[in-house]
């Protein structure tokens, strides 16, 4: 007889389109973070550190990188005989076959998976945030309140509360009202999109709402349960919690890791963040290298200069190259004498020698100003940037570009250069 007290369902299906070209080939939870991690490592590690050994990961958009990364869950100790991590993509049924149409719909379609483990509680997680949280403490809170649903919430500054969904509670933390992005917020407790459901309640409400189009937890399930009188509570979390949904917040939270005493400490022993590492050898820092405030991954070779940057695994920075205020992901090569200034370079990028990225003045991006801003240069994975070109700020580059793609060898600030290739 299989019985798990609490299982987790991790929603990892979203594209995260506000990360621009970073997610054109992979789902947002698969984006790398902090030199060697991927965003999904944080909720997965939180699970195993909280004693949850059964996690269903719901995927939909471009799941290959995620599948390869998670594999059978070895790094997170989730390779189990009973439970462990399971990837749950949409599937064909004998009557209707459909993609996941909403967060709750995705969970609904995997009802049998949950039933197999016969849980008492189900934890619903997203794959979009960087944080360390003890879900067991939240479960204790849920049990102590005999709650049907517990929402994790975080206090935000009152003046920012109108950007969030906030909850109004009584003194026992039972939720009285929800407000979605209120103009005049009456509370600063913002929902984190993390829920514990008593299994029976979740099952009933999903079945009751099974005809709801695009069924979503925040929009449909929680209000439905609240209205019918279920006990819904707010658990207050007070640690580091960072949304990395925009290029700006993604860049910022990476840079925060470099601070001498980081707010969010990866070096902490007792709440480790696990990840899959292919690269075992140490990094080599050459005689010619200068490194001032940086985080650097395994197997990287540094011959040039690095200032205030996060460098992934297996990166090569050649002699004379200067990298400043940038994020360089796994396997990228920076040619001799190249200059990288406030840029995000995705995995497997090649920058030719003498190229200069992030120069000139700041001009809003012409095609997607809401995505490519913050003065950043954003380079998609496997992009090739030829030698000696100059690239301005608020720019995006993707594809195997050559010198002819740059008028006068220049991509001015605010421009995008997206070159579709024959990549399989």
């Amino acid at each position, binding site marked *: 007889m299989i019985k798990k007290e609490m299982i987790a369902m991790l929603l990892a299906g979203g594209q995260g389109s506000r990360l621009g070209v970073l997610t054109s080939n992979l789902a947002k939870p698969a984006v790398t973070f902090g030199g060697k991690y991927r965003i999904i490592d944080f909720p997965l590690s939180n699970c195993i550190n909280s004693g949850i050994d059964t996690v269903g990961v719901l995927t939909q958009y471009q799941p290959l990188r995620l599948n390869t990364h998670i594999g059978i869950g070895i790094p997170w100790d989730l390779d189990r005989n009973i439970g462990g991590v399971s990837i749950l993509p949409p599937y064909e049924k004998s009557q209707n076959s459909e993609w996941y149409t909403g967060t709750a719909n995705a969970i609904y379609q995997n009802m049998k998976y949950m039933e197999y483990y016969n849980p008492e509680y189900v934890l619903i997680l997203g794959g979009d945030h960087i944080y360390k949280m003890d879900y067991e403490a939240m479960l204790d809170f849920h049990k102590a309140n005999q709650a049907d649903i517990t929402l994790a919430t975080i206090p935000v500054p009152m003046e920012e509360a109108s950007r969030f969904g906030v909850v109004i509670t009584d003194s026992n933390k039972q939720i009285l009202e929800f407000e979605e992005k209120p103009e005049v917020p009456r509370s600063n407790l913002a929902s984190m999109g993390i829920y514990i459901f008593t299994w029976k309640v979740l099952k009933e409400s999903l079945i009751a709402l099974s005809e709801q189009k695009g069924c979503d937890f925040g929009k449909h399930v929680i209000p439905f349960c609240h209205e019918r009188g279920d006990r819904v509570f707010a658990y207050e979390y007070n640690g580091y919690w960072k949304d990395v949904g925009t290029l700006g917040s993604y860049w910022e939270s990476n840079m925060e890791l470099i601070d001498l005493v980081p707010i969010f400490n990866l070096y902490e022993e007792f709440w480790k*963040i696990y990840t899959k590492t292919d690269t075992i050898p140490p990094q080599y820092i050459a005689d010619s290298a200068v490194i001032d405030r940086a985080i650097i991954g395994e197997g990287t070779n540094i011959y040039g200069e690095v200032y205030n940057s996060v460098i992934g695994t297996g990166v090569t920075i050649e002699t004379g190259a200067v990298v400043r205020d940038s994020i360089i992901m796994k396997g990228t090569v920076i040619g001799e004498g190249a200059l990288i200034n406030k840029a995000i370079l995705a995995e497997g990028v090649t920058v030719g020698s003498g190229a200069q990225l992030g120069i000139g003045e700041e001009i809003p991006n012409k095609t997607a100003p809401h995505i490519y801003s913050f003065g950043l240069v954003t380079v998609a994975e496997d992009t090739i940037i030829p030698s000696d070109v100059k690239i301005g700020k608020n720019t995006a580059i993707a594809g195997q570009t050559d010198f002819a793609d740059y008028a006068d060898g220049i991509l001015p600030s605010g421009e995008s250069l997206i070159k579709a290739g024959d990549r399989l």
Partner: protein
Amino acid sequence: MRAVGIILAGGHNNKMRELSNKRAIAAMPIAGSFRAIDFALSNMTNSHIQKVAVITQYNSKSLNEHLNSSKWWDFGRKQGGLFVFTPTITPENSYWYRGTADSMYQNISFLKNSHEPYVVIASGDCVYKLDYNKVLEYHIDKKADITVVCSKVPKGEEPNRFGILNKDEDNRILSIDEKPIEAYGELISTGVYIIRRRLLIELLRKANEEERYDFVKDILVRHSQVKQIYAYEIDTYWSNIATAEAYYKTNMDFLKKEIRDYFFHEYPDIYSKIDDYPPAKYNQGAAVRNSLISSGCIINGTIENSILFKKVYVGNNCTIKNSIILNDVYIGDNTYIENCIVESRDTIRANTTHIGEDGEVRIVVEKNDRYLI
């Protein structure tokens, strides 16, 4: 593959000085992120040998922990697997392993229950890459009883801590001088042997009957006249780490680009157990030159021509030169370290100086109370 593997990892050695107090030589950390036994294990798996026994006895805890999952080296379980044999008491026997041959004899059921025709025996304390299949082809080709993989004496090494081989033009071994007082010849055994499984079983049984327990002295040397023993010479990098000096030199070799490229970037890979440390962090004041830095390190000082293993903390205003800092070492502020091997889990007090003088490598073992970071 038509062979099973045996890795002899039981040894210890006074020449390792204080370093062997803590662990078997095969468990010694190498090149920042590896352990010595990773090289033999990776050679096995890269040669598609799927069934490997590691025989261990001395101070085996740290080795057992390293080997606690066969996953890292990609060994399976159903069609083989990684077996770790430690001493046990049986109705017939209550001795510790009395030598390399005895350690194999006490686990002879591993050999008996296998069906592969050959056995590759390797020692766990050498750093090298080798496709054992090539040696096996040679072994079959020569119709050899035993093939010994041999190498020229590495530069700067005394030959007389090795077995010296004398061979004829056809590469048949005429004699073996095990650790001679004076060495005639420059060809040494690398501790890698290929032998037919049934012959090994027979030789081990005979040796046991005669109360002889050492594979080299009591089997190899004694049979060099009667059996067809051939030498297979390799000219790629090979190093045995079983003295403190050789251990230091082997590690320092990895600061050379060609050695790094050979082991880190050329196919096939060397595998190891994965630890869960964050990337290395360089704070203001860090200055690193010609050094290998491993994951989990936090660096505030100056590092030159050195190797930092995993999770080393280097305080402000420190200088580390020509040294090896093993894993999980905390180095307090204003410390000066030169020509040293700092033992793992050490805590080095602030404002101290540690120098290995007169070209001698100093081994630093300091267990002070650690400041919390």
